[in-house]
């Protein structure tokens, strides 16, 4: 596997690889997003209890799942970067962090909009809401820590280390609704049993989740390409590429 992966640690190869993937990822993310959201928002039956307001699930759940998925991806990149000392992996950490932060904000905002009609409050200090908020702080911490060093390489390494430390929060978020009996409902699909959601609502939801995942990949590719160009601007291949 390492023989196969090794060339991609080289920034030039990775740049062109991402460039090749990018159009496919972008188009499929857009298509899946349109399909999943239009199907979910317009064509699924209304919930017997929550009426139409439950439809925000098609944005809330994908962004919440992927805010954690992005963190897991970022932490894996950080692990690779620190253990094998691979530069592009550090840039990948910094490429993912703002995307994950935005996903977290989307999850929090849509959750608030959903909470208002259902629980009667924009915000409750519930275990899952609090730990999702901590996740946002962790993302912001990684971004801020990277910007605080005059030596960019040290900044990249230290923020990778912080990303790795923050992994401890992921299981806490996921299991918070089981450990503490709180207002937020338990998992409907991410469990090892028959999903407790009707298939007619499940399919568009799964498509939306996939769409958010592919969008995450696409944006990461985009940001990683930019990061590679910024960091390698004095290399001959970059100079030739931009024609300078």
């Amino acid at each position, binding site marked *: 596997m390492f023989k196969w992966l090794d060339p991609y640690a080289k920034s030039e190869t990775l740049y062109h690889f991402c460039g090749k993937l990018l159009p496919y990822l972008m188009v499929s993310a857009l298509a899946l997003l349109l399909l999943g959201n239009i199907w979910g928002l317009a064509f699924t039956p209304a919930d017997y209890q929550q009426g139409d307001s439950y439809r925000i699930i098609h944005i809330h759940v994908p962004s919440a799942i992927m805010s954690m998925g992005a963190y897991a991806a970022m932490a894996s990149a950080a692990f690779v970067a620190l253990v094998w000392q691979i530069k592009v992996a550090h840039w990948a950490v910094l490429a993912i962090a703002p995307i994950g932060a935005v996903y977290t904000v989307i999850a929090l905002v849509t959750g608030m909009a959903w909470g208002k009609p259902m629980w009667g409050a924009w915000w409750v200090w519930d275990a899952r809401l609090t730990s999702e908020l901590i996740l946002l702080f962790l993302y912001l911490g990684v971004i801020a820590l990277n910007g*605080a060093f*005059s030596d960019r390489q040290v900044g990249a390494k230290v923020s990778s280390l912080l990303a790795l430390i923050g992994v401890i929060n992921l299981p806490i978020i996921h299991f918070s609704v089981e450990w503490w009996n709180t207002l937020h409902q338990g998992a409907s699909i991410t469990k090892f049993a028959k999903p407790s959601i009707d298939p007619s609502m499940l399919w568009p939801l799964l498509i939306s989740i996939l769409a958010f995942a592919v969008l995450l990949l696409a944006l990461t590719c985009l940001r990683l390409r930019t990061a590679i160009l910024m960091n390698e601007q004095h290399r001959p291949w970059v100079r030739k590429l931009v024609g300078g």
Partner: protein
Amino acid sequence: MVSMVFLQRELRLLARQKADWLNPILFFIIVLSLFPLGIGPEPNMLRIIAPGVIWIAALLSVLLAAERLFKDDYRNGVIEQLVAGRHSLLAFVLAKTFANWLSTGLPLLLLSPVVALLLGLEQAALGAMALTLLLGTPLLSLLSVLGSALTMAADKGGILLALLILPLYIPLLIFASSAIEAASIGLGYQGQLAILLAMLLLALALVPMAVTSALRINVS
């Protein structure tokens, strides 16, 4: 053995720079005395907010001490020598953490009866507060050593350190204040204490490793 040498060094440094550990303690007391002034001296009200207030004041005062933990050692090259030398960096980190606890955590623990008096806590809640401080302050020291090691070489340390470690303090704050709250209404609080102990042991196992690698990164 090496740990003892490092510990002696840390304690000697603390003895010479008294402001480093006296100021956070004064800060703790001042923050605590601000709450009754701001909210009003109603005893029932104070009793309700006391658990949270005590722990928030503790977090902030520990944070105040955390910023300078590694700064001087980094500036005058001690860290670099330690990383380059053959001595164990782990012993240094453990000594640092223990000295930090002795200078910030332990005084808070000793002050807790006075604090209970100020905020009108009852006997049962006082016991709970002392126990949570006993289990929680070493965890605070571990986390502040971690935050300090991460931001050691950063240009803008202060506020960044708060942004990094306050989120990590949150679980501790939740369980510690819920233990004191449970005790003050006469419920058992062994569960919260067990969770605090579990968090402390987990941090004790993992944080020193993270700190040594942060030190290595910062001088590489």
